[in-house]
């Protein structure tokens, strides 16, 4: 094929590189702006090379910028997001692995229906769950807490994690389990001794998927928390809609945007292979 295309090969690279430019544009623009002063950006435009390195944008964005009358920067909201994403990711992955194992390898009456509902949970819009969650959280006394978001993301996340793990475990040869049963291993021992040791690939995929999804989630965060309890996505919206005084602090806001995007970008660049696998596992089914 390569031979036949050779005359048009420059065009091929032009298209590929052109689209790469389009993809990189927002990242590059925001990154450059994070080193430019607000005065500089307002005088020219958001697209431009930094005249100097305005490092103070980063320190202000991190711990000094005023977001909704609190002048502590983005740091407390980043902390909130970590307090939310770490337990929710661990819990939803662990519970999903057990549930996926139960559904795929311990057949029971109605397991197909249970699995169908799990899949429905993946597609169900969050909007269908907002009012019930609000009422349940109020009754549990969890209104406006990070624990509430952990609970929501654990329960909802199980739809994804169970689906992923079930699709992985369903490929395990039944003979392996029969052997375990002959040896007298029960539910937990089989899980511990046979299933868990072969699970790292799917566990990594699931953890990456959950971490990215929960970190980036916005609707629940903005609906169920206010002020100091909000995760970073909700705080970012508050930054961008902070009443514009005479000067919009694009430089500081750009640094805040990068900081908020950094955890999931790092996960992507470090675990890219697994990231992609999660996508295809979720999609081609």
């Amino acid at each position, binding site marked *: *094929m*390569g031979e*036949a295309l050779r005359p048009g*090969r420059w065009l091929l690279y032009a*298209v590929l590189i052109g*689209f*790469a430019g*389009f*993809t990189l*544009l*927002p990242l590059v*623009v925001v990154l450059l702006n994070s080193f430019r002063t607000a005065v500089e*950006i307002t005088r*020219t*435009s*958001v*697209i431009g090379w930094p005249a100097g390195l305005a490092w103070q944008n980063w320190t202000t964005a991190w711990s000094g910028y005023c977001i909704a009358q609190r002048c502590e920067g983005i740091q407390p909201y980043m902390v909130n997001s970590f307090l939310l994403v770490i337990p929710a990711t661990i819990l939803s992955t662990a*519970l999903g692995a*057990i549930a996926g194992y*139960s*559904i795929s390898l311990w057949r029971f009456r109605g397991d197909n229906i249970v699995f169908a*509902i*799990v899949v429905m*949970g993946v*597609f*169900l*819009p*969050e*909007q*269908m769950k*907002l*009012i*019930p969650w609000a009422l349940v959280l109020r009754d549990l006394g969890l209104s406006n807490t990070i624990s509430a978001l952990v609970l929501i993301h654990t*329960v909802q996340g*199980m*739809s994804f994690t169970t689906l992923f793990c079930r699709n992985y475990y369903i490929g395990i040869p039944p003979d392996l389990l029969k052997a375990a049963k002959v040896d007298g291993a029960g539910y*937990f021992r089989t899980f511990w001794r046979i299933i868990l040791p072969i699970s790292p690939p799917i566990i990594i995929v699931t953890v990456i998927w959950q971490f*990215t999804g929960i970190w980036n989630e*916005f*609707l629940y965060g*903005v*609906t169920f928390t206010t002020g100091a309890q909000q995760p970073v996505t909700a705080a*970012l*919206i508050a930054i961008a809609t902070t009443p514009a005084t005479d000067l*919009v602090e*694009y430089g500081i806001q750009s640094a805040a*945007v990068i900081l*908020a*995007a950094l955890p999931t*970008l790092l*996960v*992507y*660049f470090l675990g*890219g292979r697994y*990231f*992609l696998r999660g*996508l*295809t596992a979720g*999609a*081609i089914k």
Partner: protein
Amino acid sequence: MRRRLADFLPLLVIWLPLLINVAHVVGFTAWTTWLSFTSSDLLPEYDWAGLRSYNAVLRSENTVVAYINLVLYGVGFVGLTTLAGFVLAVLIDQRIRAENLLRTIYLYPLAVSFVVTGTAWSWLFNPAQGIQKFVRSLGWADFRFDWIIDRDLAIWTIVIAAVWHGTGFAMALFLAGLRSIDPDLHKAAQIDGAGPARYYLRIAAPTIWPVAISVLVILLQFAIKTFDLVRAMTGGGPGIATTLPAVVVYDFMFQRAQLGRGSAAAVLLLLSLVAVLLPYYLYAHWRARRERAAHG
């Protein structure tokens, strides 16, 4: 009795979380649907008001604009993303240099939240600070790119940002599909003297069309659910020019505190989703059955 409890506890550990998940999917859907038939306002009421909320929602201008926007945005976003994803996948499949680098670049938007995506693109689209001002500063004094403040064109800025976010995903799935084609088919086509255009249109495309359908459905269901991107980019404006069904639900529920109407709008959102997913499910079911039949 103690033995009973010892038997019972592990079962609880195993099944309770799954039970809660299943109950929340079914129960919350039923709960919201129920509320949509009540006269709930600021607080939930459990009476019967028939289709009153649905009438109000369907008559509201926001809903009409949102669904017209959804059609424009859905067609624009899904069409462009699928097309760009397929073209990129075919180009990457040409044994190019730096494949890994390019793939990494195309896919990174997927790791970025819609809040970040929308914020960054809203700066670029802002005529007073973004691309328009930049191009003008280069000397093209009457260059105009002010779609984001134009009622008729603003929805297309959302389309561009969403295409930016989703193309890598479509590319990755198409590329996986192309790579899964039997290499012998490729060789046979070459021996027959089929050029690359012929190979991709006549041999590759028919083989990977199930992938294409998956891509279309996933993008479409995502389009129906789009909320964060609009909130971050335009807040639904100018006016209500870029509002979408998911935004309308939120407005009814939490801006106007009309829980009954918000629930009705949410049920309508779910129905549009079902309209997309049900045919796909039936198709997938049909295909699986046909494959089973084919393999005996």
